[in-house]
């Protein structure tokens, strides 16, 4: 185990190269590793063995909260806190409360989805060894990188380098922690 480095960063020049490299790293049994890509590559989640995102759970909770908030707010204001007859209509009815509850469902779902995405991605995180690399500009432009972290239990500098070279890496650099 190398303590002084964060990990290895290996360059690949096309989407299909990193796709196959990701399969090999996954099959080698690494857990703490990642791909840096300028855009989401179709199927790369499967090649990396990343499981389905948990974001929808946040969305569901947000949506339910929003709908409940809408309905209970309209009931509270119109039927409980200050009952007032307007146009001979009932103090509360789920029918006239629906449009606003519907909008609040969407509003809360949006916030929960985005909040969930940030939480799961642990963003904002303005400091990261990958961002310190001089290659990150290209990594967000037209080049693809595999990063294997040193904290992975299977990590061994020489073996990881060999794996990445065998997977077709064009260039391998060490990331400082």
């Amino acid at each position, binding site marked *: 185990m190398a303590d002084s480095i964060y990990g290895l960063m290996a360059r690949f020049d096309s989407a299909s190269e990193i796709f196959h490299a990701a399969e090999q790293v996954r099959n080698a049994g690494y857990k703490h590793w990642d791909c840096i890509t300028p855009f989401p590559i179709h199927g790369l989640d499967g*090649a990396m063995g990343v499981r389905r995102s948990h974001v929808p759970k946040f969305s569901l909770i947000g949506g339910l909260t929003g709908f409940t908030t809408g309905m209970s707010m309209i009931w509270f204001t119109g039927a409980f806190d200050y009952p007032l007859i307007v146009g001979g209509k009932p103090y509360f009815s789920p029918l006239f409360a629906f449009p606003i509850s519907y909008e609040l469902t969407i509003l809360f779902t949006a916030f929960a989805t985005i909040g969930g995405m940030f939480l799961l991605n642990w963003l904002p995180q303005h400091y990261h060894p990958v961002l310190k690399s001089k290659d990150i500009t290209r990594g967000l*432009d037209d080049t693809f990188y595999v990063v294997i972290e040193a904290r992975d239990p299977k990590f061994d500098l020489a073996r990881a380098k060999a794996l990445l070279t065998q997977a077709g890496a064009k260039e391998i650099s060490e990331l400082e922690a």
Partner: protein
Amino acid sequence: MAHSAHSEHAAPAILAEVNPAPLPRATLVESKRSFNWVTEKICGIIEGPTPRWWWISFAVSCFVASFTVIGIAYLVSTGVGVWGHANPVNWAWDIVNFVFWIGIGHAGTLISAILCLLRQKWRTSINRAAEAMTIFAVVCAAIFPVFHVGRVWFAVLPGYLFPFPNSNAIWPNFRSPLEWDVFAVSTYGTVSVLFWYIGLIPDLAVLRDRFYKAGNKFKSALYGFFAMGWRGSNRHWSNYEMAYLILAGISTPLVLSVHTIVSFDFAVSLIPGWHTTIFPPYFVAGAIFSGFGMVITLMMPLRAIFRLEDLITQYHIDCMCKIILATGTIVGYAYGIEFFIAWYGSNPYEGFAFINRAFGHYAWAYWIMITCNVITPQFFWFKKVRNNIVLVWILSIFVNVGMWFERFVIIVTSLARDYLPSSWGYYSPSAVEIFTFFGTFGVFGVLFLLFIRFLPIMPMAEIKAVMPEADPHSGHGDSKH
């Protein structure tokens, strides 16, 4: 992390073996451009020096916007009587302008959400600018309902529009479609901003790193702050893509509901010509129609100025024209059905309202509407017309004009001639009203010019993702020059 890599068998091995038959697809980025070309092209607009035309347009837009500022200041200091409203026409240009602008916004959400769900990949090069258009249109739209109350502080004080506890102990009337509108439009504005911002994050990260490399620490920090430390990690992309999909999924019912609720403002009332069940779908189709008109009005000059022909191709223009054709035809059909139902429903007031629209005092407005909205889009049946960029742009202006008149016809003709002949009237706008509306184009222009100067006008990551080299199964396509 929530989901680390697990067993070796997570991905079906068959993926690598599947080899679907190649079907010809429209090219979305022409001239076989590389990923790097896309980055350079779009970042270059922001990184380059400010062009002279930008300053000129910006100055003109600021000047025009000042009309809105002055008009509103005059309205607030004097009273809502400075507008031409008088009994029986108490809704006029204010609500016309509100519906006009909010409708324009709908194309942005249609492109970013509905076309995303329908996997229409051509949306990628126009969605950023169209979403920006949505947000700025909502800003312009919001001016009118807020200020048409005259004593504007009542609109912002707690308890009147939004339910906050207040010293008068009153709550808003949730039975009213106008209150539904408050929630619909404010949700729409908020979710549009969120959706737009989420789309911007990866591109802001690109700019952050490019400015850092170029030695501009201030801009790097500024873009970096909003980029949230994005680093292109695929584990992040996985959650990001899911969040984006969900936002698209909820924005779709949102955009449909917003104009539905706007149409409820009219349809739930008892005014002849307003009280019709066709209003929600007809308003939504009209909104998308007018919004695409505005997208073309904005994108054609941008395409020419920034030489974006490889990114906004003839195929993109064709698609937009066809949507205008489809929605314009739906709108024309709705005009016809309104007449049919007015006759078939045997309500003399309803029948009169429609005869009056077409042949009454406001017939001039009605026939402008019919010409612009029903006849104009029919030209898009012809490929020759769609291929003529200048003609497409001119026709898009007609669409914008026609849709403004549609709202004018609906709102004003019905109010000017309602049940009691003794209360009939004729409405003309005042100079203050005309200039206030004129100024909103300046407000929109200022915001849009700032957007094209400081933010990437196209989503780089999304464009790259629809290029052929982005497909990991496309063979070993080299992304380099």
